[in-house]
């Protein structure tokens, strides 16, 4: 097991390098660049010379392998460089939005788990009876409804019923928890519903599978109370695939909320990504994509570690 984990850990690096190369090349395939957009975008005539000077300042005139080497050597020192559009460090630009995206991701995860575990278990226990059908329809609906549309409906509902909109300005949780929550609970709900649907379905099928195992029958034959069988024998073993799904979805929430952020007018990582791409902000796009991929790979790894912790059979293999 230890060897496997070490191997998994080491494999993270080639994957990240691949992501880095990929995004580096991809972003440079865009027609146009930041200098052209910023200077010529203002309408006036800009001399070719001035643009060339600006490109030199940003290092865009150098050969592509040189630019990549510079970026990599910066990365090795944990320096993501400076945004080509705002001139502020990439880490700063990401940092101020990361908080918001992370908070929504965490809240959505809590909502998802709180819904999925009980609903999925109930559905499995009452398989093919009405509670099961109700839960299944509820969760398939969650998968079918675009979460951004659910967001629109939530906003619409508040506007029509109470003439109220959630606050527009982000306030950190520790500054004003009430204001913070009244802004962020709604996007978390909209995304959490879909997320819970994925997790509910996984919980249901995992519990169903475990309930058919021999050791459950043995436990029943021994006369252990049903509740104990469920909590101690069934749920514990059914959690493995559920943990995987939750881990993967969580990672996607960090960078994948582009549309929901748009609906709720939130200034998060998704919006930052779209802005950075449309502004040809190479350094920012690179840093952002690398971060999202890193979070994803890391949570994959964390899921593996959790597996080992939850299932001793894996640990001792």
């Amino acid at each position, binding site marked *: 097991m230890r060897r496997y984990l070490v191997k998994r850990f080491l494999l993270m690096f080639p994957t990240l390098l*691949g*992501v880095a190369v990929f995004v580096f090349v991809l972003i440079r395939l865009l027609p146009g660049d930041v200098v052209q957009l910023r200077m010529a975008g203002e309408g006036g005539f800009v001399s070719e010379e001035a643009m060339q000077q600006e490109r030199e300042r940003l290092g865009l005139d150098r050969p592509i392998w040189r630019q990549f080497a510079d970026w990599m050597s910066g990365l090795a020192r944990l320096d993501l460089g400076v945004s080509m559009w705002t001139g502020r460090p990439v880490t700063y630009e990401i940092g101020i939005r990361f908080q918001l995206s992370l908070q929504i991701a965490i809240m959505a995860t809590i909502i998802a788990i709180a819904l999925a575990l009980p609903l999925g278990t109930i559905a499995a226990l009452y398989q093919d009876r009405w509670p099961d059908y109700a839960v299944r329809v509820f969760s*398939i609906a969650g*998968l*079918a*409804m675009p979460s951004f*549309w659910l967001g629109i*409906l939530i906003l619409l509902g508040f*506007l029509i019923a109470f003439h109220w909109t959630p606050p527009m300005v982000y306030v950190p949780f520790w500054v004003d928890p009430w204001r913070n929550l009244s802004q962020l609970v709604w996007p978390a709900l909209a995304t959490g519903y879909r997320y819970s649907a994925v997790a509910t379905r996984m919980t249901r099928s995992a519990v169903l599978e475990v309930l058919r195992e021999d050791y459950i029958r043995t436990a029943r034959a021994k006369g252990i109370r049903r509740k104990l069988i469920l909590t101690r024998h069934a749920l514990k073993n059914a959690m493995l695939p559920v943990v995987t799904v939750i881990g993967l979805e969580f990672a996607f929430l960090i960078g994948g909320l582009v549309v929901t952020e748009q609906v709720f007018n939130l200034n998060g990582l998704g919006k930052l990504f779209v802005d950075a791409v449309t502004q040809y902000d190479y350094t920012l796009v690179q840093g952002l994509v690398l971060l999202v991929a890193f979070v*994803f790979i890391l949570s994959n790894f964390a899921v593996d570690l959790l597996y080992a912790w939850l299932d001793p059979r894996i640990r001792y293999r």
Partner: protein
Amino acid sequence: MAIRALEVEEAAVTPGHVGRGVAAVLRFARRKPLGAAGATVVILMMLTAVLAPVVAPYDPLETHYDAMFAPPGAQHWLGTDSFGRDVLSRLIFGSRTALLVGFGASVIGATAGLIIGTASGYFGGRTDMVVQRILDVFLSFPLIVLALAVVAILGTGTLKVILAILVPMIPRAARVCRSSALAIRETPYVDAARTCGYGHVRIILRHMVPNVIPPYLIVLTAFLGQAILLEASLSYLGLGVQEPTPAWGLMLQGGAAEYAESAPWIPVFPGLAISLAVFAFNLFGDSLRDVLDPKLRTL
């Protein structure tokens, strides 16, 4: 289970056995009523899309400036939008866009994944290792981020949106098909084909791919709903299908606040259409998966 899966597949694929095909469909409907309901909705949607000019009460592009923001009523069943265009007609024509993008992206994406995954599993060893690492790279982005990147490079429009959606689907399909291919590679008939001196391409396409069809179909149906959702998201952001093409995601544009007082039906109905379509595809896909391979849960 494997035998049953083969049965279904054979019945569906072999030409000239119409009777058996019908029997398989009937058996599926009896065993999986929810799946059959989903399939029925999908078929109805296809019919609507094909017959759109006949079914739709108005031209989806025709503007009625005397009836802007008209509420749902006898004239316009689902109301009109800010240009006075009939919402119902736009929904009906929008199903063309949704199905075109959904099927186009899923079929091409899943098929490309099928071939890449099967080939990777067939060759194994170093080739497999390299392909897997490349797939890892693609898999470490959220779907929408990769799709946005493709749109940024190619630009917007229906065909480019299909491309943007199918690219992130390839590695996901390849992953699933590869794991089936790994098992098939060890079977005697692949060995036999190799001993006969057949080329790699022939063995992969003629001997392995047909046996990876069950997981392929599962992936394909799972993608259909996702592709429609993704198209709606991209179009909503203004980075997908472009006006005046009727598309459901596009119809949601404009924000809740703008319509709350004047015309709440404008954002409500397109969302319902998207949800219904994805719901139907998911129901069908779920049941198909139960029949073909119940072990395959993570998609």
